[in-house]
């Protein structure tokens, strides 16, 4: 039986099988109530996710903090 999360792709365009599987799995995780960590790990650590008007930068918050501290240094030196 076909999975609930299977999608249609263009018939004449080659697709990496891993990508098709990724999307299938991603929406399944998305609909699993407590799979918060697995959901976050579906993204790269520096990913940008935009849900309607809500922007989330990064799975790893440290990258953002590093960037902020660099801005502070510039401000002090000028």
């Amino acid at each position, binding site marked *: 039986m076909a999975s*609930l*999360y*299977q*999608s*249609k*792709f*263009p018939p004449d*365009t*080659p*697709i*990496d099988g*891993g*990508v*098709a599987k*990724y*999307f299938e799995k*991603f*929406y399944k995780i*998305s*609909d699993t*109530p407590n799979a*918060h*960590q697995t*959901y*976050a*790990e*579906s*993204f*790269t650590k*520096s*990913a*940008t*996710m*935009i*849900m*309607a*008007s*809500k922007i*989330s*930068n*990064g*799975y*790893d*918050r440290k990258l*953002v903090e590093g960037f902020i501290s660099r801005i502070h240094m510039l401000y002090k030196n000028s």
Partner: protein
Amino acid sequence: MSFNMDNSYFYDCLIIIRAFSYEIDVDITLTNYHLEILATRKGMWDAVHSREHHIEKIFPFGPNATEFMLFGTVAYELKSGKRAEIPWGARATMVKESDVWKMGFYQVYLVRAVTFLALKIYYSVHASGEITNHATRILPQYRMRIRQQCRTCLYIY
């Protein structure tokens, strides 16, 4: 659907809904100190009991693409018992990290909740005959009702 944009009642709806959405944003920001995506994801489930995505089609940008546009629907059941089905679209960019596919960029497009909700409330109030004069301002009892509807709606998005 025709709509008179000069109507002050509609703008009253928008102002209240916007103000309330900022209150919710503040709440989300306060819990965002650790991992942003994780926090957003948890926030998405606050008012939701269950949900089910249906992915209609995925459009790759050329052969063996890493960039895609997608569309489908998502059906929700809220903790309040209400149900809704919303069409969505998305853009996704895939990145392979040590042989595992991950998303480097993901944007979901939905009908703007604020506009949709304001129109919905505007028409429901008009249809019930509670407001006959287009210049009528929102009465306090309606403000509370709009806030309650916002809480349900904004948490979905």
